[in-house]
């Protein structure tokens, strides 16, 4: 017999009211504004956009405020919101070589066209808490220097000129880019689908996997050919007009990871590559993504699949933190009936075990007599 149990409506409503109170906190303090979150917690906003797979700074900031700063909750909220909107179409591929650059560094070439542009980076800071930020001290305006106007050439194009690195990564002619928001995941998957999944994958998960490859679990001996951060145009074909138009610019981070050589009877030895592309300013994520992209190409290069980072199904199936948190967190929801069934089972097993034990001691006693 199945007996439905209801209840909890009042408790849930009151809990959500309490949540709203705790989210607001001390009313004597001013409420934090969405524009303040966008302006002053910009990298948190960028992470939410990247992992929600939805570029909209104001909505991401709203999600962060609503989630009380819980990033995965904010990502969940924004990911859910995107399902309420119609899809207008697919943009033309963004052109990262035409990026309006805010930062570009290369670990492989010291003097490359365009130079090493540090931009607004945490690198070379001492990671000491800064007490001046306890107060709202005046901040110096950034220094300026005449822009060289030199094109900021992509490092992959420099290496490609010598033929020492593999191509950007082509797929068979006529291949239509897959879309994990439209089709269920199927393995094995093409590299375009993997990159889409990785681009919205959890930063911490990809970071750990990328790190594991450095520690020897699928070592590829990588170099950062280049990391670049800046704005690119998003263009959409307008069917009404018969040409494409710009919708504006978005900020993205791109990482070209250059890994160790492969060659075959047909192709001479050359560097291989991993690619990372992420919404917003998100260097750690872009680097981790490019390491994992390279590791996942193991079979393509005839490498032995021996490490977690090379296991496509393992990596892609567990990279989405919205899915992961849903399945882990559902464990706290009522499982009363399930648990009762297991309790009854373990009680019966215990009874049988004790009866068997009692029986065998009787046997021993009989044997002794």
């Amino acid at each position, binding site marked *: 017999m199945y007996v439905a149990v209801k209840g909890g409506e009042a408790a849930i409503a009151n809990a959500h009211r309490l949540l709203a109170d705790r989210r607001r906190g001390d009313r004597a303090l001013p409420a934090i504004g969405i524009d303040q979150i966008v302006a002053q917690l910009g990298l948190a906003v960028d992470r939410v956009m990247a992992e929600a797979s939805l570029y909209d700074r104001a909505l991401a900031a709203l999600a962060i405020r609503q989630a009380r700063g819980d990033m995965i909750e904010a990502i969940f909220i924004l990911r859910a919101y995107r399902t309420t909107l119609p899809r*207008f179409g697919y943009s033309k591929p963004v052109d990262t070589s035409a990026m309006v650059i805010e930062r570009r560094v290369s670990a492989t070439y010291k003097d490359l066209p365009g130079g090493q*542009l540090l931009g607004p980076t945490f690198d070379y800071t001492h990671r000491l808490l800064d007490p001046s930020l306890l107060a709202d001290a005046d901040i110096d305006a950034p220094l300026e220097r005449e822009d060289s106007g030199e094109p900021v050439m992509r490092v992959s194009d420099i290496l490609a000129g010598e033929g020492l690195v593999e191509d950007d990564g082509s797929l068979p002619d006529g291949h239509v*880019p897959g879309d994990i928001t439209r089709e269920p995941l199927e393995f094995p998957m093409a590299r375009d689908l993997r990159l889409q999944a990785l681009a919205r994958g959890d930063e911490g998960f990809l970071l750990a996997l990328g790190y594991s490859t450095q520690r020897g679990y699928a070592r590829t001996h990588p170099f950062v050919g280049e990391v670049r951060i800046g704005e690119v145009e*998003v263009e*959409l074909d307008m069917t009404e007009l018969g*040409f494409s*138009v710009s919708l504006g610019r978005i900020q993205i981070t791109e990482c070209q990871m250059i890994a160790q050589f492969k060659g075959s009877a047909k192709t001479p030895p050359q560097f291989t590559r991993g690619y990372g592309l992420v919404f917003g300013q998100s260097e750690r994520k872009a680097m981790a993504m490019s390491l994992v992209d390279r590791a996942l190409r193991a079979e393509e290069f005839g490498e032995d699949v021996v490490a977690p980072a090379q296991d496509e199904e393992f990596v892609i199936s567990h990279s989405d933190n919205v899915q992961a948190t849903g399945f882990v967190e559902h464990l706290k929801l009522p499982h009363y009936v399930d648990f009762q069934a297991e309790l009854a089972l373990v009680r019966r097993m215990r009874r049988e075990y004790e009866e068997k034990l009692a029986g065998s001691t009787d046997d021993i006693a009989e044997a002794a007599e």
Partner: protein
Amino acid sequence: MASVQKSADPGATDADGERRRAIGLLAKATRAELQSAFDALDDKPDAQPVRGPETGLVMVRGRIGGGGAPFNLGEATVSRASIRLGDGTVGHGQTLGTDGAKARLAAIFDALFQQPTSKAAVERLLAAIAARVAGEDAAKARQTAATRVDFFTMVRGED
């Protein structure tokens, strides 16, 4: 080699190119820029809605390795609107974000851009938008240039 993205579609006419430039600049305008230009118009156009304003998503694509096969990077919010002026001229506006009112204003200016009588006024607006964007880009480029590393080599005196 990286494939180079064409900045204009093959077969596009000069008029298409002009309009493409106008729509692209209107997308980069702020709502305030469009609103104040609208407020400054002597004859307020009678713009009837054809579609929207509505907000939806565009799936932004990247290319593997930067120049290889396309892949889907993630979506962005886009707002768009189409309007028709009294004489039947249709204007389209679309812009990243959720500001439908801005898309509608952009659509009005796209329509006005196609009309000889109002084109000059729209050109002035476009020039102002282009100048602001170029100024912001140049300032950012100069700030970035100040963070460029100047390498120098220490004389080590090994001889």
